[in-house]
């Protein structure tokens, strides 16, 4: 298939908007040809997953765009970096690694990106609208934008997310196009007594991620979620165990008012039943330690805690009042943190062990004081990646279990 370029695309490629834009367009064109797109389309925004330092090439690329006078052409948010710029000293890193890692974050700001440094850009003022074309990186953000909001993005990553932002364009292919957003595999929850617990949504996410492959999953029988944070946890889990970029939940998500709508009137390629035992099994596999194991820390907020999640956590902290000094790390976006501070909501919370973390996440960098113990989390994503990334043992439980465990000093689950 040949790629049709607009006059604007050709002018950018020819260098009329400067060398940085020309380079971004050249890379975008090569990518678009490789995926078989017929043309490029305009995007309304971008989210860049480029602030974690993985080597010199990543930094050299951004520096070269800065030198070439590059500016993003659409509102562009940034994913987490390796540092908490709000709380200096929280991340422990040798100076030789720190300088380039910090520079990577600030160089993106010089391109005109917003200093959001959050993996939940959909819960900031940059949240896209239904049907909007966007180019996003970060797996949990992609699945939320597509599924819960109905915005349209493919799974963009390394370099190409930034090339879309610099050009305001994306290849017209994949999930940007209506016909490719059709559900393909049906997951049925048939147990009528399933309660909409936080763990249920994580469990469903883990299972559909594992079993969908590259097909778009549709979930029927899912209890109505309390709030969008439960769908956020489902999507994050699905994008952890698999490559899910879009799911539909019948009568819940915006492109699935009915089963027929979710499948565009076609028949599911496969139907998979999810039982309570399947859910228990998927969740049990997240924990590498038994109940009663001594606890070193709690980590919440992967993806970054929303204001609503904080409003559930803070009364719980006051009620349970953990007093053993076990740190309770909560990853959140800096805008959410500022709002909480303006509201005075965090006053006195450090007495319960609360340590807010902004701009980064406790599993991508060295924040935790102790790595030799058990860390409890309410995040399926954190539970999956943290053992490999930072070498901790993990216990999974819902938010209340995590806080009660911090108070008890060991893992307790299911107490009410």
């Amino acid at each position, binding site marked *: 298939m040949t790629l049709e370029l607009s006059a604007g695309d050709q002018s950018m490629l020819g260098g009329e908007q400067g060398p940085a834009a020309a380079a971004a367009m050249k*890379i975008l064109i090569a990518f678009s040809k490789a*995926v078989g797109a017929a043309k490029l389309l305009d995007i309304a925004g971008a989210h860049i997953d480029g602030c974690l330092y993985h080597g010199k090439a*990543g930094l*050299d*690329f951004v520096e070269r765009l800065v030198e070439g006078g590059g500016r993003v052409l659409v509102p562009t948010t940034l994913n987490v970096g390796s540092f908490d710029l709000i709380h200096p000293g929280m991340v422990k890193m040798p100076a030789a690694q720190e300088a380039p890692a910090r520079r990577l974050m600030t160089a993106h700001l010089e391109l005109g990106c917003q200093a959001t440094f959050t993996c939940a850009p959909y819960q900031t003022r940059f949240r896209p609208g239904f049907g909007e074309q966007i180019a996003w990186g970060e797996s949990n953000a992609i699945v939320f934008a597509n599924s819960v909001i109905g915005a349209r993005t493919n799974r963009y990553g*390394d*370099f190409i997310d930034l090339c879309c932002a610099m050009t305001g364009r994306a290849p017209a292919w994949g999930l940007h196009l209506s016909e490719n957003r059709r559900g393909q595999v049906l997951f049925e929850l048939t147990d009528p007594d399933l309660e909409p617990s936080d763990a249920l949504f994580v469990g469903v996410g883990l299972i559909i991620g594992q079993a969908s492959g590259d097909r778009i999953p549709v979930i029927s029988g899912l209890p109505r979620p309390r709030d969008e944070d439960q769908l956020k946890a489902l999507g994050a889990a699905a994008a952890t165990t698999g490559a899910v970029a879009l799911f539909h939940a019948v009568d819940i998500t915006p492109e699935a008012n009915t089963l027929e709508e979710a499948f565009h009137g076609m028949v599911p390629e496969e139907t998979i039943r999810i039982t309570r035992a399947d859910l228990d099994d998927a969740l049990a596999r997240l924990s590498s330690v038994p109940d009663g194991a001594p606890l070193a820390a709690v980590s919440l907020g992967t993806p970054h805690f929303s204001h609503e999640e904080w409003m559930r956590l803070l009364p719980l902290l006051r009620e349970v009042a953990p007093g053993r000094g076990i740190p309770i790390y909560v990853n959140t976006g800096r805008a959410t943190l500022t709002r909480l501070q303006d509201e005075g909501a965090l006053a006195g919370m450090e007495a319960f062990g609360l340590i807010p973390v902004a701009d980064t996440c406790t599993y991508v960098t060295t924040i935790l004081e102790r790595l030799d113990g058990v860390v409890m989390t309410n995040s399926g994503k954190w539970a999956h990646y943290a053992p490999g990334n930072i070498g901790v043992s993990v216990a999974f439980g819902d938010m209340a279990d995590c806080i009660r465990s911090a108070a008890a000093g060991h893992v307790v689950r299911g107490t009410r």
Partner: protein
Amino acid sequence: MSKQDRQALDRTGVFQLAGEAQGSALVLSQALSFWGGVDAETGDIIDHSHPALGGNVAGRILVMASGRGSSSSSSVLAEAIRRGTAPAGIILERPDPILAVGAIVAEFLYDISMPLVVCDTSGIVSGDRIAIGINEDAQAMVSLT
């Protein structure tokens, strides 16, 4: 192999990134993800689930059906090209957007053109001496030397 037999294996392909290269073929039966699969410091294949574990891609003409896996492979390939631990060239059966981005970014940053070619790979076996060239129509020419 006679000269005639070798010439019978010559073929043309499409460049995802144009360039010239020569080297010994490393033919993989399974697609290799550079992220989690190749150590950019050494070129070693480090994916424990891959049959070529323990091999090394540096300076070889890497031949496989397709790319695989995370978009972070773009960064790993670009970093390997920068360090000189990347393959001399890559030949694929199907175009791969992630490897294309890595190769193009490396050329943009470091002026190193690691050719990425899409063509029929049948008949190529590991150890064949392969040359990738450019013909007058800007197509890739893959030949056994």
